[in-house]
């Protein structure tokens, strides 16, 4: 078990996503009526206004849409590991579904391990999941990305 500075506050809309990460699934919310996928999750389908929701696993494969390399001043836990990378991944089967994440060498590898000079837009990546990260509220597994 490792500790991190910032964990998500799970709410009724986001809980299935984060629970999926603990089960090794990258899930996306869909409308229970018209089945349109949407990210981030929300109560109502913007296409048909249904409040019915379902969650489906994705391929977990995508391409780097963009990336940044933050430097200090940052929150203390991130200052200590900066510079690190943050990427946005576009999902292969539906490129307008995107996720913010980090490119790592292995599921529990640090987010400052990959040389930023080697990160490129459109590079293929696949999701992996960190070991559960804990705080006083509970524990959450993070989706991370490795080169595909």
């Amino acid at each position: 078990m490792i500790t991190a500075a910032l964990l998500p506050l799970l709410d009724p809309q986001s809980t299935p996503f984060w629970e999926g990460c603990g089960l090794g699934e990258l899930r996306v919310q869909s409308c229970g009526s018209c089945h349109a996928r949407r990210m981030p999750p929300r109560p109502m389908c913007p296409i048909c206004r249904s409040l019915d929701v379902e969650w489906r696993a994705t391929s977990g494969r995508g391409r780097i849409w963009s990336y940044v390399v933050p430097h200090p001043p940052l929150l203390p836990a991130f200052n200590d590991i900066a510079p690190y990378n943050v990427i946005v991944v576009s999902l292969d089967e539906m490129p307008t579904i995107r996720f913010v994440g980090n490119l790592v060498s292995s599921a529990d590898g640090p987010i400052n391990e990959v040389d930023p000079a080697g990160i490129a837009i459109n590079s293929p990546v696949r999701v992996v999941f960190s070991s559960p990260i804990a705080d006083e509220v509970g524990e959450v597994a993070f989706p991370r990305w490795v080169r595909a």
Partner: protein
Amino acid sequence: MPTPLLQDATAIVGIGATTWSKSSTRSELELALDAISAALDDAGIDPSEVDGLSSYTLESTEEVEIARNLGLGDIGYFGKVHYGGGAGCGVVGQASMAVATGVCNVAVAWRSRKRGSAASRPWAGVGQRIGGPAQWSRPFGLLRPVDEIAMLTRRYCHEFGATRDDLCTVATSIRAHANLNPAAQMGAKPMTREDYFGARMISEPLCLFDNCLETDGAAAVVIVRADRAVAGPQPPAFIHSWAQSLPRQHQTMTNYFCDDPLLGPAWACGEQLWERSEVGPSDIDVCQLYDAFSPLVLLSLEGYGFCGRGEAAGFVAEQGIGPGGGLPVNTSGGGMSEAYIHGFNLIVEAVRQVRGTSTSQTPGATWSLVTSGEGVPTGAVLLRGANP
């Protein structure tokens, strides 16, 4: 087509601002009172005549405090606009709408900000657990507005071939305007291209000089109906048109989830603005484009139609946006080199341009555009000088 209802119906007749500093000893309330007093004196209007108030939801000075300190009259309209740096032009536009429709007669719009204020920096107050939309980005280390805009910037450069060299041109052009403005925080500090490329990185691809300043200060404007404006002591800056935009499927700063994240709110806002205007982008004499970060200037030039999509870097290089350029942008130094108070100093400067009193004056400026933050729900105001 009939003339839009609100076109030229109101005018900004008073402007006021405090000095800009990094650490004022005065409170945000005192700064606001100073700026509003100056704006009312500039307009030649007694505080007792003010019956409308308009500001940002992030504003910490409350209407009741503003009113009872300044001795304002009975307030009949008060409203606030959300989304930080996206709010300013909506703050002015909504006040203008209240005046034009007779809901109030004399409206004051203002913004007062101290950089240390918790309310001014929503990202700084994050706790251990991150709820709401930020849970999809901040736990991964995408913490600050600069990180969020850097993500769009990298993609923009990838799609359209812009480079840090183009961002440098934006930053140094705006600094050159500031160097003509003794009141600007960076007024006495020139910036060379070497300075820019020597600066430390904040969130690659953005460096220190792609970021706005940190400022303590306040600015205010006074708005009345056009018939009264022409009788006042100052040349009126008519509010020719204004628009706000919260485009479909938009998600503020981390707008990575819609079909095309690089088509930000400026695009839909510009479309509405020009529909309500007698003129188009090629008629505009001078611009104040919201510049919390240098790439927002490029995105705004495209969104408001000054050039085609992906062409802003070439436009800036060929036209020039600095002093004497084909389209001067942020002529007081903007948020990057004059002061950063969520874009309200840009509104004051847009008025100075049609009065002919800017320190980097565009000769004969009649059409003066000011925009609020691209990348968040936004707004724009087009001012028309009194003698087109």
